[in-house]
């Protein structure tokens, strides 16, 4: 499992795509909001928690479609499935690698972008915390979607239609925590719920993803 995780992380970094592009997308999308909504700080502040979370989510989503597909096409996925490690651990390792190359960088970069949308400074730690707790859920749920659509060519749009509804609870709790912090309420209940979604996804997603991969490989 560790081997697979390291291999995927290395591949993502060497290919030059991975983290850099997700961050670039995140930065551009955040500034697009300012162009769309207008530069007034009050307006930006109102949409900041939601916008930051939605774009972090989209950045995650856009890098999902290749999660299993490259390995499916060149046959490595068959090898992984035949190997000693169960497919569930392989799926978990892949999701972890995805998180390490997109979720983690986004989490760390988010507070730097927060001032662009005039998010109050005291909300920044909560933003990081909520993404740290919620991003694993995004990668795990996304892995299920990627496993389901691995055989579909040009499945990017299909993947979004499948995965975005599944992201709703994570988004609601995550953005709620940031909003609560920005407005001076207690963010902890929402943060706890965000973490709970991640833990639930951790328990369910590897099995669902592995089942989907098995159905696709048969």
């Amino acid at each position: 499992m560790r081997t697979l995780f390291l291999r995927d992380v290395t591949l993502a970094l060497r290919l030059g795509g991975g983290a850099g592009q997700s961050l670039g997308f995140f930065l551009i999308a955040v500034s697009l909001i300012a162009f769309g909504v207008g530069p007034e700080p009050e307006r930006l502040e109102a949409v900041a928690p939601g916008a930051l979370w939605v774009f972090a989510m989209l950045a995650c989503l856009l890098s999902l479609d290749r999660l299993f597909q490259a390995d499916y096409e060149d046959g490595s996925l068959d090898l992984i499935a035949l190997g000693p490690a169960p497919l569930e651990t392989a799926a978990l390792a892949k999701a972890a690698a995805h998180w390490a190359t997109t979720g983690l960088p986004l989490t760390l970069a988010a507070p730097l972008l927060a001032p662009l949308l005039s998010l109050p400074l005291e909300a920044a730690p909560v933003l990081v915390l909520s993404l740290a707790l919620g991003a694993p859920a995004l990668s795990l749920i996304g892995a299920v979607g990627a496993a389901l659509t691995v055989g579909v060519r040009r499945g990017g749009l299909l993947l979004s239609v499948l995965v975005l509804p599944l992201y709703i609870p994570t988004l609601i709790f995550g953005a709620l925590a940031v909003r609560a912090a920005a407005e001076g309420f207690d963010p902890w209940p929402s943060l706890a719920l965000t973490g709970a979604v991640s833990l639930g996804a951790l328990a369910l997603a590897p099995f669902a993803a592995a089942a989907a991969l098995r159905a696709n490989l048969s």
Partner: protein
Amino acid sequence: MASTGIWTFANPYNFMRLSERLLPPVAIAAATVFAVGLAWSLFFTPDDYQQGLTVKILFIHVPAAILAINTYMVMVVASLIGLIRSHPVSHLVAKSCAPIGAAFTVIAIATGALWGKPMWGAWWVWDARLTSVLVLLFFYMGYMALWEAIEDPVKAAELSAILCLFGSVFAFLSRYAVMIWNTLHQGTSVGVTAGGALHDSFFYPLAVMILAHYLLFIALLLLGVRTEIMARRARSLRLRESFG
């Protein structure tokens, strides 16, 4: 027939035989109850003292909303049976549920908007109930999209079932997430007939309409599954012809 219960109908022929006999009476019953229910609820109920004529939208809206949710439940159970027991007809039941459920969901949302405009002054409010019905529509859409996208019917059935089961967890979670999301921020939203039970003169026609919608659902489901089985047969005949 050695096996009993629903396992008999894992054989499409058994299902076709039974559904052929069931479909006409159910369809006729649905049409009759619909006619009675519509006439009763539209012409023989009093106008509401606050809502006036618009109250009559609810005779479609409430049953459609009930069916929208319950069709999803049927879909989940059918997917579960299909996945665990490799029950091909059960997979097709789940598949046929999706467009019916999505249609009921759209009807519920559309009638809700028509009712909401004069009552609340807005076509749409991000009320917890409305939002969770909208989210339900997203889940139906994703499920149908996956079925469409995969060519091999056996794979499509299995993968869609996995999506349905995994998705159902998040569908239920979304429902509660939406309630928390809304109550924290929007404060009190406009309640639907909160407090005060429904008067009998509304309750009985509504019950008839709910029954009519259920019958319609069963008739459409039988018809849908029959169509799927026939399409499957036509497909294998075509394949046999071109490769045989």
